Protein backbone atom coordinates (compact mmCIF):
# COMPACT_ATOMS: atom_id res chain seq x y z
CA UNK A 1 0.00 0.00 0.00
CA UNK A 2 0.95 3.60 -0.36
CA UNK A 3 2.36 4.10 3.16
CA UNK A 4 4.57 1.07 2.62
CA UNK A 5 5.75 2.66 -0.60
CA UNK A 6 6.24 5.96 1.19
CA UNK A 7 8.34 4.28 3.87
CA UNK A 8 10.42 2.39 1.28
CA UNK A 9 10.92 5.56 -0.69
CA UNK A 10 12.09 7.48 2.37
CA UNK A 11 14.27 4.73 3.84
CA UNK A 12 16.08 4.17 0.52
CA UNK A 13 16.86 7.84 0.04
CA UNK A 14 19.73 8.81 2.34
CA UNK A 15 19.22 12.63 2.30
CA UNK A 16 15.51 12.18 3.09
CA UNK A 17 16.28 9.64 5.82
CA UNK A 18 18.67 12.21 7.34
CA UNK A 19 15.87 14.82 7.19
CA UNK A 20 13.47 12.46 8.99
CA UNK A 21 16.06 11.74 11.70
CA UNK A 22 16.79 15.48 12.03
CA UNK A 23 13.10 16.38 12.36
CA UNK A 24 12.59 13.57 14.90
CA UNK A 25 15.62 14.79 16.84
CA UNK A 26 14.58 18.43 17.08
CA UNK A 27 11.02 17.39 17.91
CA UNK A 28 12.27 15.24 20.80
CA UNK A 29 14.62 18.02 21.93
CA UNK A 30 11.76 20.54 21.83
CA UNK A 31 9.46 18.26 23.82
CA UNK A 32 11.96 17.21 26.48
CA UNK A 33 14.10 20.36 26.64
CA UNK A 34 13.28 21.01 30.29
CA UNK A 35 14.75 17.64 31.27
CA UNK A 36 18.04 18.26 29.46
CA UNK A 37 21.13 19.34 31.42
CA UNK A 38 21.11 22.79 29.83
CA UNK A 39 21.69 26.23 31.28
CA UNK A 40 18.60 28.33 31.98
CA UNK A 41 17.93 30.11 28.64
CA UNK A 42 17.01 33.34 30.44
CA UNK A 43 19.70 33.35 33.11
CA UNK A 44 22.02 36.31 32.55
CA UNK A 45 25.67 36.71 33.50
CA UNK A 46 27.67 39.90 32.99
CA UNK A 47 30.90 37.92 33.38
CA UNK A 48 30.06 35.68 30.44
CA UNK A 49 28.90 38.33 27.94
CA UNK A 50 29.61 37.59 24.25
CA UNK A 51 31.83 34.58 24.93
CA UNK A 52 32.75 32.62 21.79
CA UNK A 53 32.02 28.88 21.61
CA UNK A 54 33.98 27.01 24.29
CA UNK A 55 33.68 23.69 26.15
CA UNK A 56 31.70 25.53 28.84
CA UNK A 57 29.32 27.21 26.40
CA UNK A 58 29.37 25.04 23.29
CA UNK A 59 27.74 27.64 21.03
CA UNK A 60 28.93 30.69 22.99
CA UNK A 61 26.91 33.29 24.89
CA UNK A 62 24.88 36.35 23.89
CA UNK A 63 25.06 40.02 24.90
CA UNK A 64 23.50 39.24 28.27
CA UNK A 65 25.70 36.20 28.93
CA UNK A 66 22.90 33.72 28.15
CA UNK A 67 23.85 30.30 26.77
CA UNK A 68 23.21 30.15 22.99
CA UNK A 69 22.90 26.34 22.86
CA UNK A 70 20.18 26.38 25.48
CA UNK A 71 18.39 29.26 23.74
CA UNK A 72 18.58 27.60 20.30
CA UNK A 73 17.06 24.38 21.69
CA UNK A 74 14.37 26.26 23.63
CA UNK A 75 13.74 28.30 20.49
CA UNK A 76 13.01 25.11 18.56
CA UNK A 77 9.99 24.61 20.81
CA UNK A 78 8.45 27.91 19.68
CA UNK A 79 9.25 27.28 16.01
CA UNK A 80 7.81 23.77 15.97
CA UNK A 81 4.75 24.74 18.02
CA UNK A 82 4.04 27.58 15.60
CA UNK A 83 4.67 25.34 12.57
CA UNK A 84 2.40 22.56 13.81
CA UNK A 85 -0.15 24.97 15.32
CA UNK A 86 -0.55 26.96 12.12
CA UNK A 87 -0.94 23.79 10.05
CA UNK A 88 -3.47 22.36 12.54
CA UNK A 89 -5.59 25.53 12.63
CA UNK A 90 -5.35 26.30 8.91
CA UNK A 91 -5.62 22.65 7.90
CA UNK A 92 -8.86 22.10 9.81
CA UNK A 93 -10.51 25.45 8.97
CA UNK A 94 -9.19 25.58 5.40
CA UNK A 95 -10.20 21.99 4.65
CA UNK A 96 -13.74 22.52 5.95
CA UNK A 97 -14.09 25.70 3.87
CA UNK A 98 -12.51 23.98 0.87
CA UNK A 99 -14.97 21.08 1.14
CA UNK A 100 -17.90 23.51 1.39
CA UNK A 101 -16.79 25.45 -1.69
CA UNK A 102 -15.67 22.41 -3.66
CA UNK A 103 -18.43 19.91 -2.96
CA UNK A 104 -21.52 22.07 -2.70
CA UNK A 105 -22.74 24.41 -5.38
CA UNK A 106 -24.60 27.67 -4.86
CA UNK A 107 -24.08 30.63 -2.57
CA UNK A 108 -21.98 28.93 0.17
CA UNK A 109 -19.40 27.97 -2.44
CA UNK A 110 -19.38 31.42 -4.03
CA UNK A 111 -19.18 33.16 -0.65
CA UNK A 112 -16.27 31.03 0.57
CA UNK A 113 -14.32 31.56 -2.64
CA UNK A 114 -14.91 35.31 -2.69
CA UNK A 115 -13.71 35.65 0.91
CA UNK A 116 -10.73 33.40 0.10
CA UNK A 117 -9.81 35.60 -2.87
CA UNK A 118 -10.04 38.67 -0.65
CA UNK A 119 -7.63 37.24 1.93
CA UNK A 120 -5.27 35.98 -0.77
CA UNK A 121 -4.95 39.57 -1.98
CA UNK A 122 -3.13 40.51 1.24
CA UNK A 123 0.62 39.92 1.44
CA UNK A 124 0.73 37.18 4.10
CA UNK A 125 3.55 38.75 6.12
CA UNK A 126 1.93 42.19 6.27
CA UNK A 127 -1.40 40.60 7.30
CA UNK A 128 0.38 38.63 10.05
CA UNK A 129 2.29 41.74 11.21
CA UNK A 130 -0.89 43.77 11.58
CA UNK A 131 -2.96 40.96 13.14
CA UNK A 132 -0.32 40.24 15.76
CA UNK A 133 -0.07 43.97 16.52
CA UNK A 134 -3.80 44.19 17.14
CA UNK A 135 -4.20 40.90 19.03
CA UNK A 136 -0.98 41.18 21.06
CA UNK A 137 2.08 38.99 20.80
CA UNK A 138 2.00 35.58 22.40
CA UNK A 139 2.24 32.05 21.02
CA UNK A 140 -1.50 31.72 20.38
CA UNK A 141 -1.88 35.09 18.63
CA UNK A 142 1.22 34.43 16.50
CA UNK A 143 -0.31 31.10 15.43
CA UNK A 144 -3.64 32.80 14.65
CA UNK A 145 -1.99 35.73 12.85
CA UNK A 146 -0.02 33.43 10.55
CA UNK A 147 -3.04 31.14 10.07
CA UNK A 148 -5.13 34.05 8.75
CA UNK A 149 -2.88 34.07 5.69
CA UNK A 150 -2.54 30.28 5.39
CA UNK A 151 -6.24 29.29 5.70
CA UNK A 152 -7.13 30.66 2.22
CA UNK A 153 -4.30 28.61 0.71
CA UNK A 154 -5.67 25.42 2.27
CA UNK A 155 -9.19 26.40 1.19
CA UNK A 156 -8.19 26.93 -2.42
CA UNK A 157 -6.06 23.82 -2.51
CA UNK A 158 -8.75 21.60 -0.95
CA UNK A 159 -11.38 23.07 -3.26
CA UNK A 160 -9.31 22.24 -6.32
CA UNK A 161 -8.76 18.70 -5.07
CA UNK A 162 -12.43 18.18 -4.15
CA UNK A 163 -13.63 19.57 -7.50
CA UNK A 164 -11.69 16.91 -9.35
CA UNK A 165 -12.85 14.14 -7.00
CA UNK A 166 -16.56 15.00 -6.84
CA UNK A 167 -17.14 14.10 -10.48
CA UNK A 168 -15.48 10.67 -10.23
CA UNK A 169 -17.54 7.58 -10.93
CA UNK A 170 -17.37 6.21 -7.40
CA UNK A 171 -18.79 9.45 -5.98
CA UNK A 172 -21.57 9.34 -8.55
CA UNK A 173 -22.22 5.70 -7.58
CA UNK A 174 -22.39 6.58 -3.89
CA UNK A 175 -24.88 9.34 -4.71
CA UNK A 176 -26.91 6.92 -6.83
CA UNK A 177 -27.26 4.41 -3.98
CA UNK A 178 -28.56 7.20 -1.78
CA UNK A 179 -25.57 7.93 0.49
CA UNK A 180 -25.88 11.24 2.35
CA UNK A 181 -23.63 14.18 1.42
CA UNK A 182 -21.86 13.96 4.77
CA UNK A 183 -21.16 10.26 4.28
CA UNK A 184 -19.91 10.80 0.72
CA UNK A 185 -17.67 13.67 1.81
CA UNK A 186 -16.22 11.74 4.74
CA UNK A 187 -15.88 8.27 3.19
CA UNK A 188 -15.11 9.02 -0.43
CA UNK A 189 -14.12 12.61 -1.07
CA UNK A 190 -11.98 13.48 1.97
CA UNK A 191 -10.30 10.08 2.06
CA UNK A 192 -9.13 10.66 -1.48
CA UNK A 193 -8.00 14.19 -0.71
CA UNK A 194 -5.80 13.04 2.18
CA UNK A 195 -2.62 12.52 0.14
CA UNK A 196 -2.34 16.00 -1.37
CA UNK A 197 -3.37 17.49 1.99
CA UNK A 198 -0.58 15.60 3.79
CA UNK A 199 1.87 17.03 1.28
CA UNK A 200 0.49 20.54 1.70
CA UNK A 201 0.66 20.24 5.52
CA UNK A 202 4.29 19.13 5.38
CA UNK A 203 5.14 22.03 3.07
CA UNK A 204 3.23 24.61 5.12
CA UNK A 205 5.10 23.80 8.35
CA UNK A 206 8.37 25.35 7.07
CA UNK A 207 6.47 28.31 5.64
CA UNK A 208 4.91 28.93 9.06
CA UNK A 209 8.29 28.53 10.79
CA UNK A 210 9.82 31.08 8.40
CA UNK A 211 6.97 33.53 8.92
CA UNK A 212 7.29 33.22 12.71
CA UNK A 213 11.03 33.83 12.39
CA UNK A 214 10.35 36.92 10.25
CA UNK A 215 7.85 38.26 12.80
CA UNK A 216 10.27 37.65 15.68
CA UNK A 217 13.10 39.20 13.68
CA UNK A 218 11.01 42.33 13.11
CA UNK A 219 10.31 42.44 16.86
CA UNK A 220 6.60 41.71 16.38
CA UNK A 221 6.38 38.04 17.29
CA UNK A 222 7.37 36.45 20.57
CA UNK A 223 9.83 38.81 22.18
CA UNK A 224 12.81 38.55 24.49
CA UNK A 225 13.43 36.99 27.04
CA UNK A 226 11.54 34.02 25.51
CA UNK A 227 14.04 32.63 23.01
CA UNK A 228 12.98 32.24 19.39
CA UNK A 229 15.35 31.82 16.47
CA UNK A 230 14.09 35.04 14.88
CA UNK A 231 14.47 37.24 17.96
CA UNK A 232 17.92 35.75 18.66
CA UNK A 233 19.07 36.84 15.18
CA UNK A 234 17.45 40.23 15.69
CA UNK A 235 19.37 40.86 18.90
CA UNK A 236 22.57 39.41 17.43
CA UNK A 237 22.66 41.49 14.25
CA UNK A 238 23.98 44.55 16.12
CA UNK A 239 27.16 42.66 16.99
CA UNK A 240 27.27 40.46 13.89
CA UNK A 241 30.92 41.28 13.22
CA UNK A 242 32.23 40.98 16.77
CA UNK A 243 30.13 37.95 17.74
CA UNK A 244 28.84 36.19 14.61
CA UNK A 245 27.83 33.09 16.64
CA UNK A 246 24.84 35.03 17.96
CA UNK A 247 23.27 35.08 14.51
CA UNK A 248 24.98 32.07 12.92
CA UNK A 249 23.60 29.29 15.14
CA UNK A 250 19.93 30.34 15.24
CA UNK A 251 20.21 31.08 11.50
CA UNK A 252 21.59 27.60 10.90
CA UNK A 253 18.81 26.09 13.03
CA UNK A 254 16.13 27.83 10.90
CA UNK A 255 17.77 26.86 7.61
CA UNK A 256 18.28 23.19 8.56
CA UNK A 257 14.78 22.79 9.98
CA UNK A 258 13.05 24.48 7.05
CA UNK A 259 15.22 22.60 4.56
CA UNK A 260 14.46 19.27 6.26
CA UNK A 261 10.69 19.88 6.15
CA UNK A 262 10.86 21.08 2.54
CA UNK A 263 12.85 18.04 1.41
CA UNK A 264 10.56 15.70 3.34
CA UNK A 265 7.47 17.37 1.83
CA UNK A 266 8.91 16.98 -1.67
CA UNK A 267 9.78 13.34 -0.97
CA UNK A 268 6.29 12.55 0.38
CA UNK A 269 4.72 14.21 -2.66
CA UNK A 270 6.94 12.26 -5.04
CA UNK A 271 6.22 8.99 -3.24
CA UNK A 272 2.44 9.49 -3.06
CA UNK A 273 1.97 10.80 -6.57
CA UNK A 274 3.09 8.47 -9.37
CA UNK A 275 2.34 11.20 -11.92
CA UNK A 276 5.30 13.07 -10.47
CA UNK A 277 7.42 10.03 -9.66
CA UNK A 278 7.19 8.62 -13.16
CA UNK A 279 8.81 11.70 -14.63
CA UNK A 280 12.05 10.47 -13.13
CA UNK A 281 12.96 13.85 -11.71
CA UNK A 282 11.34 15.99 -9.05
CA UNK A 283 8.77 18.41 -10.40
CA UNK A 284 9.08 22.00 -9.36
CA UNK A 285 7.01 23.23 -6.53
CA UNK A 286 5.87 26.47 -8.10
CA UNK A 287 5.22 28.07 -4.78
CA UNK A 288 5.27 26.21 -1.53
CA UNK A 289 3.25 28.89 0.14
CA UNK A 290 0.65 29.28 -2.55
CA UNK A 291 -0.24 26.07 -4.28
CA UNK A 292 -2.19 26.52 -7.45
CA UNK A 293 -5.36 24.53 -7.84
CA UNK A 294 -4.13 21.09 -8.78
CA UNK A 295 -4.97 19.71 -12.16
CA UNK A 296 -5.07 16.21 -10.76
CA UNK A 297 -5.27 14.63 -7.37
CA UNK A 298 -2.75 12.16 -6.14
CA UNK A 299 -3.33 9.07 -8.17
CA UNK A 300 -2.73 6.55 -5.33
CA UNK A 301 -6.16 7.48 -4.06
CA UNK A 302 -7.62 5.27 -6.75
CA UNK A 303 -6.10 2.27 -5.04
CA UNK A 304 -7.57 3.30 -1.73
CA UNK A 305 -11.23 3.68 -2.30
CA UNK A 306 -13.40 0.86 -3.46
CA UNK A 307 -16.07 1.88 -5.90
CA UNK A 308 -19.31 1.82 -4.03
Amino acid at each position, binding site marked *: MKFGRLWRSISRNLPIAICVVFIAMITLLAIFVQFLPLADPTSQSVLFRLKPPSPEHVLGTDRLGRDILSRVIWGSRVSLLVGVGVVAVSGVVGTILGVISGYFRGWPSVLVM*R*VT*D*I*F*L*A*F*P*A*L*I*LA*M*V*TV*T*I*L*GNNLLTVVLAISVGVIPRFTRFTRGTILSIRERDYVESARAVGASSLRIIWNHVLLNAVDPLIVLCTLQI*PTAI*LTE*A*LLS*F*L*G*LGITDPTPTW*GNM*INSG*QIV*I*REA*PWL*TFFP*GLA*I*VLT*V*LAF*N*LLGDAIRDALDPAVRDLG*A*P*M*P*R*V*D*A*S*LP*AEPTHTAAPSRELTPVS
Partner: protein
Amino acid sequence: MRHVFSRLLQLIPTTVGALVVVFLLMRVLPGDPAAAMLGTNATPQAVADLKSQMGLDKPLPQQFAEYVLGLAHFDLGRSLALRTPVTTLIGQAVGPTLLLTLCGTAVSVIVGVPLGVIAALKRRTWIDYAASVGALSGISVPVFVWALLLLLAFTLDWPILPSAGAGDNPVDVARSLVLPAIATGFFQVGLIARVTRSTLLSVLADDYVRTARAKGLAPTAVIAGHALRNALIPVITVIGLNFGTLLGGAVVVETVFTRPGLGRLILDAINARDYPVIQGVMIISVVLVVVLNLLTDLLYSVADPRVRA
Protein backbone atom coordinates in the same frame (compact mmCIF):
# COMPACT_ATOMS: atom_id res chain seq x y z
CA MET B 1 -9.97 44.32 -24.85
CA ARG B 2 -12.98 42.31 -23.74
CA HIS B 3 -10.66 40.04 -21.72
CA VAL B 4 -9.12 43.09 -19.99
CA PHE B 5 -12.56 44.46 -19.18
CA SER B 6 -13.86 41.18 -17.75
CA ARG B 7 -10.72 40.77 -15.60
CA LEU B 8 -11.14 44.33 -14.33
CA LEU B 9 -14.75 43.59 -13.40
CA GLN B 10 -13.70 40.46 -11.51
CA LEU B 11 -11.19 42.47 -9.48
CA ILE B 12 -13.76 44.92 -8.14
CA PRO B 13 -15.40 42.60 -5.56
CA THR B 14 -11.98 41.37 -4.35
CA THR B 15 -10.67 44.90 -3.91
CA VAL B 16 -13.86 46.16 -2.22
CA GLY B 17 -13.87 43.09 0.04
CA ALA B 18 -10.22 43.67 0.98
CA LEU B 19 -11.00 47.29 1.87
CA VAL B 20 -13.84 46.08 4.12
CA VAL B 21 -11.49 43.55 5.78
CA VAL B 22 -8.94 46.31 6.48
CA PHE B 23 -11.68 48.46 8.01
CA LEU B 24 -12.96 45.62 10.21
CA LEU B 25 -9.46 44.47 11.20
CA MET B 26 -8.76 47.88 12.67
CA ARG B 27 -12.08 48.20 14.48
CA VAL B 28 -13.68 44.86 15.25
CA LEU B 29 -10.80 42.69 16.46
CA PRO B 30 -10.29 42.61 20.21
CA GLY B 31 -7.79 45.22 21.29
CA ASP B 32 -8.38 48.94 21.54
CA PRO B 33 -6.20 50.97 19.14
CA ALA B 34 -6.46 54.08 21.33
CA ALA B 35 -5.49 52.19 24.49
CA ALA B 36 -2.69 50.42 22.62
CA MET B 37 -1.32 53.75 21.37
CA LEU B 38 -1.31 55.42 24.76
CA GLY B 39 0.10 52.49 26.68
CA THR B 40 -0.90 50.90 29.96
CA ASN B 41 -0.53 54.07 32.07
CA ALA B 42 -3.08 56.11 30.10
CA THR B 43 -6.11 57.44 31.95
CA PRO B 44 -9.56 56.39 30.70
CA GLN B 45 -10.20 60.05 29.83
CA ALA B 46 -7.10 60.23 27.62
CA VAL B 47 -8.13 56.99 25.87
CA ALA B 48 -11.67 58.37 25.33
CA ASP B 49 -10.26 61.66 23.95
CA LEU B 50 -8.00 59.83 21.50
CA LYS B 51 -10.86 57.55 20.44
CA SER B 52 -12.94 60.62 19.73
CA GLN B 53 -10.05 62.19 17.79
CA MET B 54 -9.65 59.00 15.73
CA GLY B 55 -13.41 58.82 15.19
CA LEU B 56 -13.57 55.41 16.88
CA ASP B 57 -16.39 56.51 19.22
CA LYS B 58 -18.85 56.87 16.35
CA PRO B 59 -21.21 54.03 15.35
CA LEU B 60 -19.58 51.45 13.06
CA PRO B 61 -21.79 52.20 10.00
CA GLN B 62 -20.94 55.90 10.28
CA GLN B 63 -17.24 55.10 10.58
CA PHE B 64 -17.52 52.88 7.51
CA ALA B 65 -19.32 55.59 5.51
CA GLU B 66 -16.58 58.10 6.40
CA TYR B 67 -13.90 55.52 5.54
CA VAL B 68 -15.42 54.87 2.11
CA LEU B 69 -15.91 58.57 1.47
CA GLY B 70 -12.27 59.19 2.41
CA LEU B 71 -11.09 56.42 0.09
CA ALA B 72 -13.13 57.87 -2.76
CA HIS B 73 -11.24 61.15 -2.26
CA PHE B 74 -7.89 59.37 -1.79
CA ASP B 75 -7.97 60.58 1.79
CA LEU B 76 -6.61 57.98 4.20
CA GLY B 77 -6.53 60.31 7.18
CA ARG B 78 -3.55 61.79 9.00
CA SER B 79 -0.71 60.02 10.73
CA LEU B 80 -1.23 60.27 14.49
CA ALA B 81 2.51 60.29 15.13
CA LEU B 82 3.74 62.56 12.32
CA ARG B 83 0.56 64.63 11.73
CA THR B 84 1.14 64.24 7.98
CA PRO B 85 -1.52 63.00 5.54
CA VAL B 86 -1.17 59.23 5.16
CA THR B 87 -1.36 59.54 1.36
CA THR B 88 1.73 61.79 1.42
CA LEU B 89 3.67 59.25 3.50
CA ILE B 90 2.59 56.39 1.25
CA GLY B 91 3.37 58.44 -1.86
CA GLN B 92 6.94 58.88 -0.60
CA ALA B 93 7.34 55.23 0.38
CA VAL B 94 5.70 53.33 -2.46
CA GLY B 95 8.28 54.32 -5.11
CA PRO B 96 11.37 52.87 -3.36
CA THR B 97 9.49 49.67 -2.45
CA LEU B 98 8.21 49.15 -6.00
CA LEU B 99 11.69 49.80 -7.34
CA LEU B 100 13.09 47.23 -4.90
CA THR B 101 10.51 44.55 -5.76
CA LEU B 102 10.98 45.24 -9.48
CA CYS B 103 14.75 44.92 -9.20
CA GLY B 104 14.32 41.80 -7.00
CA THR B 105 12.15 40.26 -9.71
CA ALA B 106 14.70 41.25 -12.36
CA VAL B 107 17.48 39.55 -10.36
CA SER B 108 15.45 36.36 -10.02
CA VAL B 109 14.58 36.28 -13.76
CA ILE B 110 18.07 37.19 -14.97
CA VAL B 111 19.64 34.47 -12.83
CA GLY B 112 16.79 31.95 -12.70
CA VAL B 113 15.84 31.61 -16.38
CA PRO B 114 19.35 30.91 -17.76
CA LEU B 115 19.96 28.56 -14.82
CA GLY B 116 16.75 26.68 -15.66
CA VAL B 117 17.62 26.51 -19.37
CA ILE B 118 21.10 25.14 -18.62
CA ALA B 119 19.64 22.65 -16.11
CA ALA B 120 17.16 21.41 -18.73
CA LEU B 121 19.78 21.11 -21.45
CA LYS B 122 22.28 19.45 -19.11
CA ARG B 123 19.75 17.19 -17.43
CA ARG B 124 21.09 14.94 -14.67
CA THR B 125 24.48 16.67 -14.60
CA TRP B 126 26.00 18.62 -11.71
CA ILE B 127 24.52 21.86 -13.10
CA ASP B 128 21.05 20.31 -12.91
CA TYR B 129 21.61 19.18 -9.33
CA ALA B 130 23.12 22.57 -8.39
CA ALA B 131 19.97 24.26 -9.70
CA SER B 132 17.85 21.93 -7.52
CA VAL B 133 19.95 22.75 -4.45
CA GLY B 134 19.70 26.46 -5.32
CA ALA B 135 15.91 26.17 -5.60
CA LEU B 136 15.60 24.58 -2.18
CA SER B 137 18.05 26.91 -0.48
CA GLY B 138 16.23 29.88 -1.98
CA ILE B 139 12.99 28.94 -0.27
CA SER B 140 14.61 27.56 2.89
CA VAL B 141 16.87 30.44 3.91
CA PRO B 142 14.97 33.36 5.45
CA VAL B 143 15.26 36.61 3.55
CA PHE B 144 16.81 38.36 6.57
CA VAL B 145 19.58 35.75 6.76
CA TRP B 146 20.47 36.43 3.12
CA ALA B 147 20.27 40.14 3.76
CA LEU B 148 22.55 39.93 6.82
CA LEU B 149 25.07 37.73 4.98
CA LEU B 150 25.21 40.18 2.06
CA LEU B 151 25.50 43.09 4.47
CA LEU B 152 28.34 41.39 6.29
CA ALA B 153 30.21 40.41 3.11
CA PHE B 154 29.83 43.50 0.94
CA THR B 155 29.54 46.40 3.35
CA LEU B 156 31.66 45.32 6.33
CA ASP B 157 34.23 42.74 5.26
CA TRP B 158 34.57 44.05 1.71
CA PRO B 159 33.04 47.53 1.81
CA ILE B 160 32.21 48.16 -1.85
CA LEU B 161 28.50 48.91 -1.53
CA PRO B 162 26.49 51.13 0.82
CA SER B 163 24.91 49.45 3.85
CA ALA B 164 21.99 51.85 4.34
CA GLY B 165 19.79 54.42 2.63
CA ALA B 166 18.40 54.65 -0.89
CA GLY B 167 20.84 57.16 -2.45
CA ASP B 168 20.34 60.73 -3.69
CA ASN B 169 21.65 60.58 -7.27
CA PRO B 170 21.12 57.88 -9.92
CA VAL B 171 24.53 56.27 -9.30
CA ASP B 172 23.96 56.05 -5.54
CA VAL B 173 20.40 54.82 -6.06
CA ALA B 174 21.70 52.01 -8.29
CA ARG B 175 24.53 51.13 -5.88
CA SER B 176 22.23 51.12 -2.86
CA LEU B 177 19.81 48.83 -4.70
CA VAL B 178 22.27 46.05 -5.56
CA LEU B 179 22.34 44.17 -2.25
CA PRO B 180 18.68 44.68 -1.26
CA ALA B 181 17.55 43.55 -4.74
CA ILE B 182 19.66 40.39 -4.54
CA ALA B 183 18.35 39.65 -1.04
CA THR B 184 14.73 40.29 -2.10
CA GLY B 185 14.89 38.31 -5.33
CA PHE B 186 16.95 35.37 -4.19
CA PHE B 187 14.09 33.23 -2.93
CA GLN B 188 12.57 33.31 -6.40
CA VAL B 189 15.73 32.39 -8.32
CA GLY B 190 15.43 28.71 -7.49
CA LEU B 191 11.70 28.60 -8.14
CA ILE B 192 12.07 30.25 -11.53
CA ALA B 193 14.99 28.00 -12.45
CA ARG B 194 12.99 24.88 -11.55
CA VAL B 195 9.89 26.01 -13.40
CA THR B 196 11.90 26.99 -16.50
CA ARG B 197 13.67 23.63 -16.39
CA SER B 198 10.57 21.51 -16.08
CA THR B 199 8.45 23.37 -18.66
CA LEU B 200 11.36 23.54 -21.11
CA LEU B 201 11.82 19.77 -20.75
CA SER B 202 8.17 19.10 -21.54
CA VAL B 203 8.09 21.68 -24.37
CA LEU B 204 11.22 20.16 -25.95
CA ALA B 205 9.29 16.91 -26.37
CA ASP B 206 6.44 18.64 -28.24
CA ASP B 207 5.72 18.10 -31.94
CA TYR B 208 6.35 21.67 -33.03
CA VAL B 209 9.86 21.57 -31.55
CA ARG B 210 10.52 18.30 -33.37
CA THR B 211 9.27 19.95 -36.58
CA ALA B 212 11.56 22.93 -36.05
CA ARG B 213 14.47 20.55 -35.55
CA ALA B 214 13.46 18.52 -38.62
CA LYS B 215 13.49 21.72 -40.69
CA GLY B 216 17.16 21.90 -39.84
CA LEU B 217 17.08 24.85 -37.44
CA ALA B 218 20.11 25.28 -35.23
CA PRO B 219 19.58 24.02 -31.64
CA THR B 220 19.94 27.56 -30.25
CA ALA B 221 17.31 28.85 -32.68
CA VAL B 222 14.94 26.04 -31.70
CA ILE B 223 15.34 26.81 -28.01
CA ALA B 224 15.38 30.60 -28.20
CA GLY B 225 12.83 30.99 -30.99
CA HIS B 226 10.35 28.19 -30.29
CA ALA B 227 10.71 26.37 -27.00
CA LEU B 228 11.67 29.13 -24.58
CA ARG B 229 8.74 31.40 -25.40
CA ASN B 230 6.26 28.75 -24.31
CA ALA B 231 8.44 27.62 -21.44
CA LEU B 232 8.44 31.14 -20.00
CA ILE B 233 4.67 31.37 -19.63
CA PRO B 234 4.62 29.55 -16.25
CA VAL B 235 7.46 31.84 -15.11
CA ILE B 236 5.03 34.76 -15.47
CA THR B 237 2.64 32.85 -13.20
CA VAL B 238 5.35 32.28 -10.61
CA ILE B 239 6.20 35.98 -10.56
CA GLY B 240 2.54 36.98 -10.32
CA LEU B 241 1.71 34.48 -7.57
CA ASN B 242 4.76 35.42 -5.54
CA PHE B 243 4.38 39.19 -5.71
CA GLY B 244 2.76 39.30 -2.24
CA THR B 245 5.62 37.24 -0.80
CA LEU B 246 8.13 39.46 -2.60
CA LEU B 247 6.47 42.54 -1.09
CA GLY B 248 6.70 40.92 2.35
CA GLY B 249 10.37 40.16 1.68
CA ALA B 250 10.93 43.78 0.68
CA VAL B 251 9.51 44.86 4.05
CA VAL B 252 12.15 42.78 5.84
CA VAL B 253 14.98 43.79 3.50
CA GLU B 254 14.13 47.47 3.96
CA THR B 255 14.49 46.95 7.69
CA VAL B 256 17.88 45.25 7.43
CA PHE B 257 19.28 47.80 4.94
CA THR B 258 17.56 50.78 6.62
CA ARG B 259 15.94 51.76 3.33
CA PRO B 260 12.94 54.05 3.09
CA GLY B 261 9.80 52.34 1.79
CA LEU B 262 6.50 50.74 2.75
CA GLY B 263 8.29 48.26 5.01
CA ARG B 264 9.92 50.90 7.17
CA LEU B 265 6.72 52.94 7.11
CA ILE B 266 4.50 50.11 8.39
CA LEU B 267 7.06 48.92 10.93
CA ASP B 268 7.50 52.45 12.35
CA ALA B 269 3.71 52.83 12.33
CA ILE B 270 3.26 49.51 14.16
CA ASN B 271 5.84 50.49 16.79
CA ALA B 272 4.08 53.85 17.28
CA ARG B 273 0.63 52.19 17.06
CA ASP B 274 -0.12 54.73 14.31
CA TYR B 275 -3.29 53.02 13.07
CA PRO B 276 -4.18 55.34 10.15
CA VAL B 277 -0.75 54.67 8.60
CA ILE B 278 -1.01 50.89 9.22
CA GLN B 279 -4.42 50.95 7.55
CA GLY B 280 -3.06 52.98 4.63
CA VAL B 281 -0.12 50.64 4.02
CA MET B 282 -2.43 47.61 4.11
CA ILE B 283 -4.72 49.23 1.56
CA ILE B 284 -1.88 50.15 -0.79
CA SER B 285 -0.29 46.69 -0.51
CA VAL B 286 -3.60 45.03 -1.41
CA VAL B 287 -4.06 47.41 -4.34
CA LEU B 288 -0.51 46.65 -5.53
CA VAL B 289 -1.08 42.88 -5.33
CA VAL B 290 -4.43 43.12 -7.13
CA VAL B 291 -3.04 45.38 -9.89
CA LEU B 292 -0.01 43.13 -10.33
CA ASN B 293 -2.22 40.05 -10.56
CA LEU B 294 -4.18 41.83 -13.28
CA LEU B 295 -0.99 42.73 -15.14
CA THR B 296 0.19 39.11 -14.82
CA ASP B 297 -3.09 37.90 -16.30
CA LEU B 298 -2.82 40.34 -19.17
CA LEU B 299 0.81 39.46 -19.81
CA TYR B 300 -0.21 35.83 -19.75
CA SER B 301 -2.80 36.42 -22.45
CA VAL B 302 -0.23 38.29 -24.55
CA ALA B 303 2.25 35.41 -24.22
CA ASP B 304 -0.36 32.70 -24.76
CA PRO B 305 -3.18 33.65 -27.16
CA ARG B 306 -5.17 30.56 -26.07
CA VAL B 307 -5.91 32.31 -22.76
CA ARG B 308 -7.86 35.03 -24.57
CA ALA B 309 -10.11 32.52 -26.24
